[in-house]
């Protein structure tokens, strides 16, 4: 099987990786999510010629994005912590949660394991076996974390919708 031009990889998976980075790093930190996206694809570009032809490209990218988002998050934790409310900016381009801010904020408030499990399974579409490899737990534990996360989100979301 032939290797695709990297441009194809960006076209096919760029949006998913951006959503994953946003989910993991939170809606208040658009610039951090973009940095994580850039770091992810630059790392991937570097390693791409050595990627086995039969590799699951999406799982590979999400694994890199997971590490890069953690790096970016760690760097951020050394900076002042932003406030807990969404900034009231008219600049839609800078607001990663323009469609449904409440949902993304609720997602960001989940415990790490749950947030990661939801991001990698429900947003990136990886099977729990792959999610477990990234999170270093078992497929069952990954499934439970995602289910718990979705349960909490459902509660928040329903409440927000009815209010």
């Amino acid at each position, binding site marked *: 099987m032939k290797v695709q031009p990297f441009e194809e990889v960006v076209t096919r998976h760029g949006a998913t990786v951006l959503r994953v980075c946003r989910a993991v790093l939170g809606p208040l930190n658009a610039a951090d999510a973009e940095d994580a996206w850039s770091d992810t694809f630059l790392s991937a570009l570097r390693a791409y010629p050595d990627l086995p032809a039969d590799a699951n490209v999406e799982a590979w990218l999400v694994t890199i994005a997971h590490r890069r988002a953690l790096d970016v998050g760690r760097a951020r934790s050394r900076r002042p912590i932003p406030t807990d409310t969404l900034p009231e900016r008219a600049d*839609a381009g800078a607001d990663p949660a323009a469609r449904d801010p409440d949902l993304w904020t609720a997602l960001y408030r989940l415990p790490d394991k749950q947030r990661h499990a939801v991001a990698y399974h429900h947003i990136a579409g990886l099977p729990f076996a792959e999610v477990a490899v990234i999170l270093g737990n078992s497929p069952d534990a990954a499934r439970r974390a995602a289910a718990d996360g979705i349960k909490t989100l459902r509660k928040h979301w329903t409440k927000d919708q009815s209010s």
Partner: protein
Amino acid sequence: MSDNIFDVSLLDEDATLERLRERLSATAEPAGLLDVAYRTLDTPVGTLLLAATPVGLVRVAFDIEDHDTVLARLADQLSPRILRSPARLDPVARQIDEYFAKRRTDFDVAVDLSLTDGFRRSVIEHLRDIDYGRRESYAQVAAAIGSPRAVRAVGSACAHNPLPVVIPCHRVVRSDGSTGQYVGGPLAKSVLLDLEAA
């Protein structure tokens, strides 16, 4: 709430991705990770694909060659580290625009001839010496490179010119004066010859 709640694209997603892709190619190049940059250019002979390595312009391709197929082959032959990166190709694109506007009769661009070698490469090298508006027959080219009996092989070399338009294989015609075949199709060859003759 279903599992696909995250599935609708965010409002700013397309614009953000466009900006991030530009940033990616801009950072990949100085990091030495952009092995092949490409862009497309609309011209009177259709949309051309322009691809360059750090050495220089490595491939010009017509629509009828199918750009996706050409890029896939470049990934195989050169490197899969390929990104759309208009900036690096802008000088070439500008010169091709000027050529079609009849404001330019030769190209001043660095080229990378690594996609051709041996006999074909010696043909390609000779083509670079055929001036604007002039024509040579396949037989004349064969004689010029010291292989007067290799007329058919010259035709084949022209058909595999990695840099058509910029390296003028369109200036090689049949001995009877008819235009002959062309990698971009016979119509494109006529357009180029007519442009230079006008």
